[in-house]
């Protein structure tokens, strides 16, 4: 475990994804750097759950994301676009300030809903 943490800090080559599935909601806690190398891991992780389990709400907790560039943002936007015609939703929580700055510049917060934490993301839309 300690070894993989060192790898993330030094090279950003490892993306750790912690998955939680509750009914049709997938929660992903992302730990690492989101760039062109790791973006495909994230895409596959989300798309396979949408296709296999019929997941319709995806919550991304970005608390432990250390870096994001346009490749990472592209995958997030791509999942939003994939869920939309399925009647699904993409929600983002716990965004560190320096990551939010990049997202803001891209205009992503105008399209995708941001929440302060997982509880707020789960709450919104529940029982509606």
């Amino acid at each position, binding site marked *: 475990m300690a070894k993989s943490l060192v790898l993330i800090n030094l090279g950003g080559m490892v993306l750790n994804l912690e998955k939680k599935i509750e009914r049709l909601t997938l929660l992903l806690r992302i730990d690492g750097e989101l*760039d062109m190398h790791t973006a495909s891991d994230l895409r596959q992780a989300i798309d396979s759950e949408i296709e296999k389990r019929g997941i319709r709400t995806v919550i991304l907790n970005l608390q432990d994301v250390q870096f994001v560039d346009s490749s990472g943002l592209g995958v997030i936007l791509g999942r939003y676009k994939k869920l939309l015609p399925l009647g699904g939703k993409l929600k983002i929580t716990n965004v560190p300030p320096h990551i939010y700055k990049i997202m803001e510049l891209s205009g992503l917060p105008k399209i995708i809903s941001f929440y302060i934490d997982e509880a707020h993301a789960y709450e919104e839309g529940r029982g509606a």
Partner: protein
Amino acid sequence: MKSNQITLTFSSIAENVSIARLLIASIGGQLDLSLNDIEELKVAVSEAVSNAIIHGYQSVPNNIVYLNLEIADDTLIIVVKDEGCGISNVEQAMQPAYSTDPERMGLGFVFMQSFMDELQVESKLEVGTTVTMKKRFKQTPISSH
């Protein structure tokens, strides 16, 4: 007067983008730049190197990307070069939201432009693309002054 120069050449594979970022972060640390400035430099370098791999070399791995970092007086000059397919219309490629791939946001050049003081893109079809980015930083004042 500070002056320094580093060149890194590496294979056009995705794993190397983070190594390019590590290098610019280390240089930023040497120059005493703020964490925010270093973050922005990392994004700019990440975009330029990703472009070289994805667009310049069409994601074909056995090619070489050149990264050159130069510090001259109060300016950090970053050059990212590929010998790939080149861009037919540089002006169009630099437009926000222009992308050849729907999964991508077309924000690479926007980020480079936003985070750097100067951005220059030279490209020739079948010859390659050279991206030159400049960032001016404040020199640490000389204590005897």
